[in-house]
């Protein structure tokens, strides 16, 4: 029996999708509920499961096509899967694959053990085996498959290999409309790390707002004195770093890291402070910030800032962080969802301080407000902890006396 595979409802106000990927090929056996095609909408990518067991007999919508809800994607032939042994005679053979070699996608089970030539090539070229298209028996990868994959590229695991397409220079008539620039190594690394962060952590962001008036009052009062005493300006970051540390003390999971099946709780707070440079964002780390006084933190940050602009921050200074603070407010950001800095489990986003009318008791007052964003890895920090962590930071900023009292 032929069953039509249609585009399902995609969610409110979403009327069309793009066919991202067919996960099965024409002629493949499929089980009911097995994902058969991936559709991409502006909001989400979803996998469409097969409504029946049988064979994907016809692909109608191709990868890249735009399809509307209810449109025909392909046709399935319903029927029993081919099984390796059967004790019932005269069983109807109902699938198209009888008598033909069925096409299979790379079967992880059958590629657990690679053939000698494949093993050598994979090792020599540092390849990601899962990216090689197999053509051997039962989805095995053959030497030819690997040679082909190397030729067409895109299977390298080693990021540091210069991509052959780097050097291609656009030389057609559209030069003046477009400009193709190869990604710099730094940008490539950043891009990969950002994707890795997104792909690993269960990342969520919780928000709060902080009334900066108390701290700003403190600052106005003691700014000159501070600068005379410590030879460094009293900024906001020192305060935020200390507020963060007291919150990290109260919620140690935020300062921890998932490593394999373990959680590593760190007894030190290495706070990374994101600094924008012409080359991109760099995050130097204030090591053992829990031992530094506010003036020492301010000095460290100033020093980092100066050297970052000249690109003179060492790898060692940028590694080992346990938590990161990022300030988008200097560029005017009011609210944002910072992305985790792996392998850390949390990041605090600071934003622009803006006078807003807020309710204080029963009255409306104009206060200098900052939205705070805390993005966290939900795998080890639960919602309650995340919210409380951010509330703690808010409370400390709103009443700096808490720092003195250690509450």
């Amino acid at each position, binding site marked *: 029996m032929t069953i039509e595979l249609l585009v399902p409802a995609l969610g409110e106000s979403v009327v069309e999708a793009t066919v991202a990927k067919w996960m099965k090929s024409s002629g493949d056996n499929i089980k009911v509920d097995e994902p058969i095609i991936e559709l991409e909408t502006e909001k989400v990518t979803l996998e469409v499961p097969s409504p029946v067991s049988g064979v994907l007999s016809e692909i109608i919508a191709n990868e890249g096509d735009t399809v509307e809800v209810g449109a025909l994607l392909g046709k399935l032939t319903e029927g*029993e899967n*081919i*099984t*390796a*042994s*059967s*004790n*019932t*005679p*005269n*069983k*109807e*053979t109902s699938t198209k*694959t*009888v*008598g*033909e*070699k*069925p096409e299979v996608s790379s079967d992880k089970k059958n590629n657990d053990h690679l*053939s*000698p*030539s494949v093993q*050598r090539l994979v090792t020599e070229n540092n390849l990601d085996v899962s990216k090689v298209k197999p*053509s*051997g*028996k039962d989805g*095995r990868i*053959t*030497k*030819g*498959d690997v*040679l*082909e994959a190397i030729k067409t590229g895109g299977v390298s695991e080693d990021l540091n290999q210069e991509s052959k397409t780097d050097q291609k220079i656009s030389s057609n008539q559209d030069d003046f409309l477009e400009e193709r620039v190869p990604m710099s190594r730094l940008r490539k690394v950043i891009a990969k790390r950002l994707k890795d962060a997104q792909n690993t952590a269960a990342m969520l962001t919780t928000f709060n707002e902080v009334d900066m008036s108390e701290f700003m009052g403190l600052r106005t009062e003691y700014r000159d004195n501070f600068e005379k005493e410590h030879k460094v300006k009293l900024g906001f970051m020192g305060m935020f770093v200390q507020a963060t540390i007291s919150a990290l003390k109260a919620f140690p999971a935020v300062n921890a890291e998932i490593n394999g099946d373990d959680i590593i709780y760190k007894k030190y707070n290495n706070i990374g402070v994101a600094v924008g440079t012409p080359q991109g964002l760099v995050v130097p780390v204030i090591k053992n910030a829990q031992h530094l006084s506010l003036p020492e933190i301010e000095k460290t940050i100033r020093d980092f800032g100066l050297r970052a602009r000249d690109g003179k921050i060492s790898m060692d200074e940028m590694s080992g962080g346990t938590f990161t603070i990022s300030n988008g407010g200097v560029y005017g950001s009011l609210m944002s969802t910072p992305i985790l800095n792996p392998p850390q489990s949390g990041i605090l986003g600071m934003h622009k301080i803006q006078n807003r009318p807020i309710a204080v008791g029963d009255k409306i007052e104009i206060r200098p407000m900052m939205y705070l964003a805390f993005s966290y890895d939900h795998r080890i920090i639960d919602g309650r902890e995340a919210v409380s962590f951010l509330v703690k930071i808010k409370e400390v900023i709103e009443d700096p006396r808490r720092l003195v009292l250690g509450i």
Partner: protein
Amino acid sequence: MAEFDLTVLGAGPGGYVAAIRAAQLGMKVAVIEKRKTLGGTCLNIGCIPSKALLHTSEKFENVNSGDLSKYGIVLSKPKLNISKLMENKNRIVSDLTKGIEFLFNKNKITTFYGNGKIVTPSEISVSNGNGNKTITSSKIMIATGSLVAPLKNVTIDEKLIVSSTGALDLKKVPNKLIVVGGGYIGLEMGTVWRRLGSQVTVVEYLDRILPGMDSEIAQKFKQILQKQGIDFKLNTGIEDAKTLKNSVQLSATNNLTKERISLEADVVLVSTGRIPHTKNLGLEGLGVKLSDKGQILVNEKFETNVPTIYAIGDAIPGPMLAHKAEEDGVAAVEMMNGVAGHVDYNLVPGIVYTSPEVATLGKTEDDLKQGNIEYSKGVFPFSANSRARAINHTDGLVKILTDKKSDKVIGVHIIGHEAGNLIHEVATTMSFGGSAEDIARTCHGHPTLNEAVKEAALAAGTGAIHI
């Protein structure tokens, strides 16, 4: 309700294997066999008796040729008791045919002895000396195999002019044996009788022996056979044969020079091929489609154009080999029962059981040249293999052909001692789509003949070590 789910006509390698597999899958199976013993041509008058005679004739030659004196083993000239030789062969055949009977009993397969004829798409009549019987069956499988191809103007009497059947049962060693047809059957039988003392001449119509095999291999093998004392008359066609009291006179024509020649022998073996055995089965009456060569035409499920009738083995197109028939039989029966099946006719090995043996699998170099396919070649002679030297079997070579781009093994051809066994490691590699490098990087025991296969695989890539 039919008496049987499946009735197989013919208990040769194709038929009996299909029957057993069908029984394993739960079908109620009947087999109709016209001989008094099971096993078909292969067991009774083909593969098995010929291999038995090849083995024992080799033993005779070892002693008779004086070779053993090279090793310091001094013997007097041996005597040959030919009836004992044949007794041994017959006993082996008999044991194996009884073995199939045993397997049929074990799998509860019903055997009918007699000539089967398909009356309707679900009825078969069996007739023997005791009368007639009709059985009903849901499915019918024709596995009737093949017969000796006749040669124009040459009448086979199985005494002086014999087919392979008679050649396996000669009562005495012919002084002069002429083998008409330079294919594997002729060469094997020629070898048997040469070893037992005959002077053997092979007359072949084409300009080469072993038609269809890799031409470089065929040429090298012919030279080896010539060294052994077999005489070859290529490009020669037999016009007619005349039997005298104790000899045969053949008149032949060289088809290049058109010269007429006369040949005489004590015994002439006609081995110019085999033809499908599809007559008198009732097929015409049922409208079963045949090719113009008389082969039954089937689809990829081995179904004929008549829905309940299937056919496999020598009766259908494809290599006329016992193991191919077995694969057909299993695939056909499995597909009847919902199991995916496929026989790759490109991966059916061909083996000649002479000494040295010849074994081939996959594409020949001629195929690749003709198809303009880019290939790499790795060759290794047994003269450079230490085991071959240790056992004085240095004739021959291993030739591996690979796809130039992917290194995938696409053909292998071997002349050598045990070639028929050696080829199977490459068969396994090829069935997985493996590369020559995969063979080269597999540890091979030392000292074995298989190392020659490994070296040939190396030769197809980075280079052999031992030559």
